[in-house]
C-alpha cells in the first residue's frame, strides 16, 4: 500500500471510529498497538506502564476521533503523538511525585545507573538487555526520536511532526542517539569478553 493509500485508508478507519464503529476501533488497535507499546515500554522502561499508556492512547483516539484531520498527519503519526504526550506526562508526573516525596525515587534512576550486582551482570550478558539499558540512559528526547524511527518505523518527517520540531533537529537527535548507543553497546561487549 502506497503512502497516500495508507493515509486514505487510515482516514476511512478514523471516520468509522468517529461514528462509533467498534470493529474499526479493533482494526486500529490491531494495526498500531504493537508499535505504540514498543515505543512506550522502551521509553518508560516498564511494560506495565506501557500497557496503561497504550490503552489510554486508544481511548483518547476513540473519544477524539472526530478531531483527526487526515490533511495534517497520517493516523500512525497522530497516534504516536498522543502516545508520546502520555509518556512525557507520565515521566513528569513521576518526577514531581518523587520531588514532593509521594513516590520513592528509584525507578528511572536505578534503570539509568544499574548497580553492578549479579543480576545486572547477568542481564548485561544479553545484547538485548544491554540495548534496553542503553536506551534508558539516553537523554529523553534522543530516546524518543530513535524509538519512533527504529521501532515505530516513522520517517524523519513524521518523527519531526510527532516531536513538534524540525527535520534537521530530528536528524541531529538520531545521529547522537545512534552514536551513543553504539558506544554503550561496544562497552557492554568489551565487559563481557
Amino acid at each position, binding site marked *: 500500500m502506497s*503512502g497516500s493509500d*495508507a493515509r486514505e485508508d487510515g482516514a476511512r478507519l478514523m471516520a468509522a471510529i468517529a461514528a462509533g464503529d*467498534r470493529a474499526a*476501533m*479493533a482494526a486500529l*488497535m*490491531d494495526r498500531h*498497538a*504493537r508499535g505504540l*507499546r*514498543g*515505543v512506550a*515500554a*522502551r521509553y518508560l522502561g516498564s*511494560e506495565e506502564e*506501557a*500497557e496503561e499508556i*497504550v*490503552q489510554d492512547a*486508544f*481511548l483518547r483516539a*476513540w*473519544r477524539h476521533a472526530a478531531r483527526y484531520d487526515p490533511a495534517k498527519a*497520517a493516523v*500512525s503519526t497522530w497516534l504516536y503523538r498522543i502516545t508520546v504526550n502520555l509518556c*512525557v*506526562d507520565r515521566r*513528569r*508526573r513521576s518526577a*514531581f*511525585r518523587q*520531588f*514532593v516525596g*509521594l513516590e520513592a525515587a528509584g525507578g528511572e534512576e536505578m534503570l539509568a545507573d544499574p548497580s553492578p550486582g549479579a543480576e545486572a551482570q547477568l542481564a548485561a550478558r544479553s*545484547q*538485548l538487555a544491554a*540495548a*534496553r539499558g542503553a*536506551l534508558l540512559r539516553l537523554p529523553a528526547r534522543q530516546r524518543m526520536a*530513535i*524509538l519512533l*524511527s*527504529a*521501532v515505530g*518505523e*516513522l*520517517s*524523519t*518527517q*513524521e*518523527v519531526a511532526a510527532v516531536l513538534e520540531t524540525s527535520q534537521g533537529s*530530528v*536528524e541531529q537527535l*538520531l545521529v547522537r542517539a*545512534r552514536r551513543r*548507543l*553504539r558506544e554503550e*553497546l561496544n562497552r557492554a561487549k568489551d565487559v563481557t569478553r
Partner: protein
Amino acid sequence: MKREQGTPEREEDRALDALLRTAAASDADEAATRQAVMARLAEPQGTARWFEWLPPLDARTAGAAFAVLMLSAGLGGYALPDLLGGVVEDWQLLNLASGSTAAIEGSFGLGGGRG
C-alpha cells in the same frame, strides 16, 4: 508505516535499528489489550478522577504540597497551569485560586473525613 525518508544509509545503523526493534518487541497479550480497551469504551465518561493517584492527605500536607508547587513553578520558570498539567488532569485551579480551605480540601478529595 514504512519510512520514505530517513532510512539509515549505513549498514551499522540498519543493524542497530533492527536490534532496537527486537529489544522493543514484547510478548504482551494483544487480545487482552483490545479487550481491556473495549471494556473501557463502555464506561461512562465522567470527570477524570485525577486525585486517585494521591494517597490520603491531611490539610497540612495538602497545603505544603501546594506551596511546593508554587515554589517549583517560580523557581523553574513554569507557568503554574503547565506544571500542574503534567501532574494532574482536570485540576480545579479555580478552587485553589479562591484560597478556600474547604475548596482545596475538596480538590484533594479530602471531603467526607478522608484526611
